[in-house]
C-alpha cells in the first residue's frame, strides 16, 4: 500500500541473512507485465529493508496477530541490521511518518522503539534526534497538529527519559497560551496549545505513573483549568444547533472539546489514571524489562531531545476556532459510544479525525481504518464489530457496549457538520461514508440510518448552512446506492406545509436527487404518496416558451425576438422589436420599459439554449453585448434577467442556479443583484427562505465573491 518513490536496486543490504545470489524480480514497469504468465516464486525471500518496511507500515492492523509480538519482531530486525543506513532510514522515517499520518498507531510505533531500546540504545538516540528535529520545525512554522502528535509519541516513550521528559515543553506551551489569552479575548491559538497539553497528558500517564509524574500532571491540570473552562466569544459561531432552547431541550449538548477534556482528565486523575482504552503493547519492556538471556538489565535511559518553544508562536496554515464535541449518539439511553464524561470519547475521536483529515488522498484507506478501529485500542474497548444496536441491551453489565461503527459515523459527521468549515471539501466526507458503506455495508448502514433519523428529527433546530449540508449529503449519498431509503417513515411529513423544515428538507433532497438522475427514475424509488412532490413538469426536457401562448403580455413580440435570434438576425432588426415592446409598455404605464424587453430577450435565450448548459452558454456568448448593456442602463432590468432565467426553469431549479452562476462569470449580472433579487424582490414574505434554490443562489454567489477576494489576496 505504501507509495515508494524509488525502487530498491539489486545488490546487498549489508544483511546477515544468506540469500545473495537469488535473482531479483524488481522491474520499473511492473504494470505492463502480465502476471499470469510469470507465477510468483514462493521461495523468493524479500530483502530485509522491504520486510521491515512492510511490517512497520502494517503494525497492529491484523486482529489475528499480537501487536506486541509484531513490535518485538520489528525491533529485532532493526537492531540486527542497524549498521545499514537504509535500515536506519526505513525504521526512523517510517516511524515518524506513521506518527504523523496514522496517529492511532503511535502507541505501537513507540512500542517498537521501547523494545529496540533494550537491544541497541543507539536506535533510540537516533529516532529521538530525528523526531525532535521534526518537532522543532513544526513548532517554528505553527504546525500544531504535528506538534501534538510528536509530543504524543514522546509521551508514549516516557519511561525511557532520564529527565522530566515532555513536561517542560508542556509548561512552556502553557506559558505561551497564557500570554496569548491575556493579550486578546479573541485568541484561539492559546486554546489550541492548551488542547495539545491536555491531549498529551493521558499518554504520559498511561506509560508510567511515578509519583513525580502524577504530581506534575496534577499541577498542569490545575493551571489549565481556568483556560479550558472559560467560554469563548466565538463559541456561538460554531454551535450546530440554534441556541434558543433550554439546555435540556437541545438535541445535542454544547461542550467544547477543551472543556470536556479538562473534566475527563480530572476524573481520570481521581481514579489513579486507569485510562482503560489506551493500548499498552510494551508491557514486556516496562514491567519486566528482561531480554532473551533471562537477565533483567534496566533499559537505557535517554535525555529528552532538546526542543525549544519559540518565544512568539505562529498561528500556522489555518485559522483556528473553538471546537465543540459533536456527537449524534452520545449521552443517550443506550451507550453505543463513550459518554462525554469518559476520556475515551475525546481520545478516540481525536485520532479518528486526525487520520481522516490527513489521509484525504486515499479515502479507501481511511474507510478501512475507520471500520477496523478496534485493532488500535485496548482489547475489549469496543463491542464486536457489526453488533446490532438492539443486541446492546443484552451485553453483560461490566462489558463495553461501544459500537465502532457508531464512533466512525460520529467522527465523519463531526467534520461534515463542523462550523465554520471542515478541513477539506465537503464531498471528501461524503466519499468516506460511501466507501465505508461499500466495504462494510452490514456494519455501517444501520449506524448511518440512526444518524440520519437523529439529524432529521432535529432538522428544525439546525443551523441553516448545516441543514443544507445534511440535505446535499443525503441526496448525494443515496445516489451511490440506488436511491434506497425508508421513505415510508416520513409519510407524515408530506401533509405539512412546504414551509415546515422537515417537508422543505424532503423537497430539497428530492430535487438534488433528480439533478443527479432524472425525474422518472426518482419517482420509481418513492412510495406513490410522494408523487405530488415530483410534478410532471419535471419530466419535460424543454420547458414551454411562454410567449407561444397569446395570453402572455407581449406574446407576439416575444415570438418575433425568438425568431430573430434563431436566424442570427442583425442587432438593428432586434432593436426594432425591442422598440415595439417599449412603446407598448409605455402605453400601459410600465415604469421601466427595459424590463419587459429584457424578459422577452432573456426568455428567448433560455428557450434556444434549453437543450444543455453548453447550448445556453453558446447563446449567451452570442448575445453578450446586448446582455452586458442592460445592467448599466437599469438595475431592475438587470434583475429581470435573473427572473427570466428562474421563471423559465421553474421546474428545474438547479439549471437556473447554474445559468445564474455563469451569468455572474460574464458579469452580465452582479453579486449584489443576485442577493437583492433573492432576498428582496422574491422574498415572498419569507416563503422563499423555505426553498433550497434561494439558499443556493445566495450561497454560491457569496462563495464566488469570497474566492475571488482570496485569489486577489493570495
Amino acid at each position, binding site marked *: 500500500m505504501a*507509495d515508494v518513490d524509488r525502487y530498491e536496486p539489486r545488490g546487498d543490504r549489508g544483511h546477515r541473512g544468506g540469500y545473495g545470489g537469488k535473482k531479483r524480480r524488481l522491474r520499473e514497469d511492473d504494470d505492463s507485465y502480465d502476471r499470469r504468465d510469470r507465477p510468483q516464486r514462493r521461495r523468493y525471500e524479500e530483502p530485509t529493508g522491504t520486510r521491515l518496511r512492510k511490517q512497520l507500515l502494517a503494525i497492529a492492523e491484523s486482529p489475528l496477530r499480537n501487536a506486541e509480538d509484531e513490535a518485538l519482531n520489528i525491533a529485532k530486525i532493526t537492531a540486527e541490521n542497524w549498521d545499514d543506513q537504509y535500515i536506519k532510514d526505513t525504521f526512523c522515517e517510517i516511524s515518524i511518518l506513521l506518527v504523523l*499520518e496514522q496517529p492511532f498507531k503511535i502507541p505501537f510505533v513507540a512500542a517498537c522503539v521501547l523494545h529496540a531500546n533494550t537491544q541497541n540504545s543507539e536506535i533510540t538516540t537516533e529516532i529521538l534526534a530525528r523526531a525532535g528535529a521534526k518537532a522543532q520545525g513544526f513548532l517554528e512554522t505553527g504546525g500544531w497538529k504535528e506538534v501534538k502528535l510528536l509530543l504524543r509519541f514522546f509521551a508514549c516513550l516516557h519511561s525511557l527519559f532520564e529527565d522530566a521528559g515532555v513536561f517542560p515543553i508542556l509548561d512552556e506551551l502553557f506559558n505561551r497560551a497564557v500570554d496569548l489569552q491575556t493579550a486578546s479575548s479573541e485568541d484561539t491559538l492559546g486554546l489550541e496549545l492548551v488542547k495539545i497539553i491536555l491531549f498529551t497528558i493521558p499518554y504520559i500517564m498511561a506509560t508510567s505513573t511515578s509519583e513525580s509524574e502524577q504530581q506534575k500532571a496534577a499541577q498542569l491540570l490545575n493551571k489549565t483549568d481556568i483556560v479550558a473552562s472559560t467560554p469563548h466569544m466565538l463559541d456561538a459561531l460554531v454551535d450546530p444547533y440554534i441556541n434558543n432552547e433550554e439546555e435540556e431541550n437541545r438535541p445535542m449538548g454544547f461542550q467544547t472539546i477543551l472543556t470536556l477534556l479538562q473534566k475527563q482528565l480530572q476524573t481520570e486523575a481521581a481514579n489513579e489514571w486507569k485510562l482503560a482504552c489506551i493500548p499498552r503493547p510494551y508491557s514486556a519492556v516496562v514491567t519486566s524489562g528482561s531480554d532473551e538471556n533471562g537477565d533483567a538489565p534496566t533499559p537505557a535511559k535517554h535525555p529528552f531531545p532538546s526542543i525549544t518553544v519559540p518565544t512568539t508562536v505562529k498561528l500556522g496554515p489555518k485559522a483556528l476556532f473553538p471546537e465543540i464535541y459533536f456527537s449524534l449518539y452520545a449521552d443517550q439511553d443506550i451507550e453505543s459510544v463513550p459518554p462525554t464524561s469518559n476520556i475515551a470519547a475525546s481520545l478516540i475521536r481525536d485520532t479518528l479525525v486526525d487520520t481522516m483529515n490527513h489521509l484525504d488522498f486515499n479515502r479507501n484507506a481511511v474507510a478501512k481504518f475507520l471500520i477496523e478501529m478496534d485493532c488500535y485500542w485496548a482489547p475489549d474497548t469496543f463491542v464486536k464489530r457489526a453488533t446490532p444496536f438492539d443486541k446492546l441491551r443484552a451485553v453483560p453489565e461490566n462489558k463495553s457496549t461501544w459500537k465502532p461503527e457508531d464512533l466512525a459515523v460520529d467522527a465523519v459527521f463531526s467534520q461534515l457538520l463542523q462550523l465554520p468549515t471542515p478541513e477539506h*471539501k465537503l464531498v471528501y466526507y461524503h466519499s468516506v461514508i460511501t466507501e465505508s458503506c461499500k466495504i462494510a455495508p452490514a456494519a455501517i448502514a444501520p449506524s448511518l440510518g440512526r444518524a440520519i433519523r437523529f439529524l432529521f428529527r432535529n432538522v428544525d433546530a439546525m443551523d441553516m448552512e448545516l441543514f443544507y449540508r445534511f440535505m446535499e449529503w443525503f441526496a448525494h449519498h443515496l445516489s451511490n446506492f440506488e436511491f434506497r431509503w425508508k421513505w415510508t417513515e416520513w409519510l407524515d411529513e408530506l401533509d405539512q406545509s412546504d414551509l415546515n423544515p422537515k417537508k422543505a428538507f424532503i423537497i430539497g433532497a428530492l430535487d438534488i436527487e433528480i439533478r443527479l438522475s432524472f425525474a422518472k427514475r426518482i419517482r420509481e424509488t418513492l412510495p406513490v404518496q410522494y408523487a405530488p412532490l415530483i410534478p410532471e413538469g419535471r419530466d419535460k426536457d424543454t420547458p414551454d416558451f411562454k410567449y407561444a401562448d397569446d395570453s402572455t403580455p407581449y406574446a407576439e413580440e416575444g415570438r418575433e425576438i425568438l425568431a430573430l435570434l434563431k436566424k442570427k438576425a442583425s442587432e438593428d432588426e432586434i432593436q426594432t422589436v425591442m422598440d415595439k415592446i417599449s412603446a407598448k409598455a409605455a402605453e400601459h404605464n410600465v415604469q421601466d420599459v427595459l424590463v419587459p424587453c429584457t424578459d422577452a430577450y432573456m426568455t428567448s435565450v433560455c428557450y434556444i439554449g434549453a437543450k444543455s448548459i453548453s447550448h445556453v452558454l453558446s447563446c449567451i456568448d452570442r448575445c453578450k453585448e446586448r446582455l452586458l448593456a442592460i445592467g448599466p442602463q437599469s438595475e431592475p432590468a438587470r434583475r429581470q434577467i435573473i427572473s427570466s432565467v428562474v421563471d423559465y426553469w421553474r421546474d428545474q431549479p438547479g439549471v437556473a442556479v447554474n445559468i445564474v452562476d455563469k451569468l455572474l462569470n460574464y458579469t452580465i449580472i452582479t453579486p449584489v443583484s443576485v442577493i437583492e433579487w433573492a432576498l428582496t424582490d422574491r422574498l415572498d414574505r419569507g416563503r422563499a427562505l423555505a426553498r433550497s434554490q434561494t439558499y443556493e443562489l445566495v450561497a454560491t454567489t457569496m462563495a464566488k465573491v469570497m474566492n475571488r477576494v482570496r485569489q486577489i489576496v493570495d
Partner: protein
Amino acid sequence: MPQFQLRNTVERLDKPSSYAMSKYKKRRRDSNSDPSTRQPSPDLEEKLKDASTLYIGNLSFYTTEEQIHALFSKAGELKRLVMGLDRFTKTPCGFCFVEYYTHEDALDCLKYIGGTKLDERIIRCDLDEGFSEGRQYGRGKSGGQVRDEYREEFDPGRGGFGKKFREGEGYGEEYGEGQ
C-alpha cells in the same frame, strides 16, 4: 547506496492512472521513429503537474451535462465541460472532459469523486493533458469509443452489446465458415 524515500504511508489517489502512463510510454517510442514531424513530448509528470482537465469515462450514453455538472461541481467550479461524441452521429458516446479552474480542484476530483457513481454507474476519472479540438470524438471504427467496439457484455447504458459483437462479427471471421 540506495536512498530511502517514502512520500506517504498509503498510496495516493491523486496521480495519473496506469492508462495515462502507458499512453506516454507508447508515444515516447513513436517519437523516436518519426522525429521530424513529432513534437518532443515533455515528461508526463511535468505535463500533468498543472493539469486541470480530467477525462471521465464509463458514462452512460444518456448521462446529461446537467448530471455531470451536478456531481463534478462538488469538487470545484467548472470552467468547461466537453461531451464525448460519436464521430458520425454526434451524439454522446459515454465519456467527457471536465475542466476546472485549478489543478487543486482536479486533484480533489480524483480523490473524492473518481470511482463513485454518476447516473448509477461507477465512473472513471483520469488526469488529462487538456482538451483540444478533435479529442471529443470517439476513435472506434463505428464512431463511438474503442471499448464499445468489441464488448461482449450487455450494457444497456452503452448501446447494449458491442458494435462488432452485435453485428455477429466475432473473431476469426477471416478464416471463413466451418463445415
